[in-house]
């Protein structure tokens, strides 16, 4: 039987300009899988990622990771972000302007491991840029550094919040490949937030489609997106997402 890394059921009310609803999500994530949370902007994908990371507190529910409980509203348990073994890649990368590439990786490690730093620099083609600060890196290089930094502490769980959304198609394709390689090489269970169908199909083993605050669909990318091909009007992710909303209303 497949080992389950994350088992969660959380509720969180979301109040934004666009949305005013309850996020009620129940899902299981297998260990070492590459899972995607797919859905329209504002449905709560990033909120869910932040809840798993401990950066946002849900209203109720539980998050169990392996044998640990990270959050349980009934038991009054809420493990601090610092104590959750995760790597998080933010949409804006959140690189530290005062640190060089190498300093980022060394800062991220609990114990200094030069070999791991060297492996990361190789994997993400950052070796020649060791002494550069983020303002001297291109968008693609910044994104690579953000992923490398997240992997530097050898997390059990890698959380990617639309990390490629600001990049051009060519760089995006290249980095999708690198992220997949890193996922395989460093064995971290990966949870990606994306609304790019191509990206999801290329990277994921399993997809959760979120809409109206709930999991609308789940399955492997081929099964989920074959529905798209069946509808001649649905050509783009946004059209597909609209159709999901329609069927659910």
């Amino acid at each position, binding site marked *: 039987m497949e080992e389950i890394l994350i088992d969660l059921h959380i509720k969180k009310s979301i109040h934004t300009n666009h949305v005013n609803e309850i996020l009620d999500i129940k899902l299981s994530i297998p260990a070492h899988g590459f899972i995607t949370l797919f859905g329209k902007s504002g449905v709560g994908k990033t909120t869910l990622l932040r809840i798993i*990371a*401990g*950066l946002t507190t849900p209203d109720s529910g539980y998050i169990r990771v392996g044998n640990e409980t990270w959050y349980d509203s009934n038991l009054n348990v809420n493990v*601090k*972000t*610092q*104590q*959750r*073994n*995760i*790597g*998080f890649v*933010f949409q*804006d*990368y*959140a*690189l*530290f*302007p*005062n640190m060089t590439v190498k300093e980022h990786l060394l*800062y*991220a490690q*609990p114990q200094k491991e030069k070999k791991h730093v060297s492996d990361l620099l190789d994997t993400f083609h950052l070796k020649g840029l060791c002494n550069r600060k*983020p*303002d001297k890196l291109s968008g693609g290089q*910044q994104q690579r550094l953000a992923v490398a*930094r*997240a992997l*530097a*502490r050898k997390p059990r769980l890698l959380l990617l919040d639309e990390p490629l959304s600001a990049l051009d198609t060519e760089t995006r394709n290249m980095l999708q490949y690198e992220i997949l390689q890193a996922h395989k090489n460093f064995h971290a269970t990966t949870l990606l937030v994306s609304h790019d169908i191509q990206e999801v199909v290329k990277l994921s083993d399993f997809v959760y489609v979120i809409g109206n605050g709930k999991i609308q669909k789940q399955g492997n990318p081929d099964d989920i997106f074959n529905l798209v091909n069946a509808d001649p009007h649905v050509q783009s992710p946004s059209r597909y997402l609209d159709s999901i909303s329609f069927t659910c209303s």
Partner: protein
Amino acid sequence: MDDSFLQTFWISIKLASLTTFILFCLGIPIAYFLTYSRFRLKIIVQALVSMPLVLPPSVLGFYLLIAFSPNYWPGNFLNQYFNIRLAFSFAGILIGSVIFNLPFMVNSIQNGFSNLPVSLKDASYTLGKTRSTTLFRVLLPNIKPALLTGVCLTFAHTIGEFGVILMIGGNIPGKTRVAALAVYDEVQALNFSTANKYSIFLFLFSFLVLLFVYSINSEYSKWKRF
């Protein structure tokens, strides 16, 4: 330059340096609290910190003078148990100066924290780093211009302070007489030439400090943020 002139400037610089040092140490935790705390009543703390910006210095000076007086309980307590008299002393004007300059330091640092993307702090936490490590390794190194602005403004403003010091410290040469008070004193005595000497120093000093602050900020504004 006579001894009295140098002595007055020395007291001004000593007061400004100590005020700046104390406020730098106090300003960072207060600004951090005001920026990141979710405490609902922090707006009251914010208003209290900014009060000296709008409160007449004489009002603050008056209440501090009352508090320092041995006729009221805080002054009486300090006098009776520690033999400390703050009214008309250097320690007294230092306390007044720290309170009066609080917003110049705290608001500058708070602006620095507020202008940093929140994701920097979050990113450091997701890397397993504590609040203090995040503060010293990530947040403070990235708000250097704000820290420098706070230091320069506090120092310069203390050098030019008048009302609070006059109320709490009087105008005792060699003890509480600072440059700004000396200008007033010399004009009262019709010594315009001496008043002019103090004024030119204060004028040039204030100009140079502001020039320094603006040049640093203009340099750092070119620094790209992420």
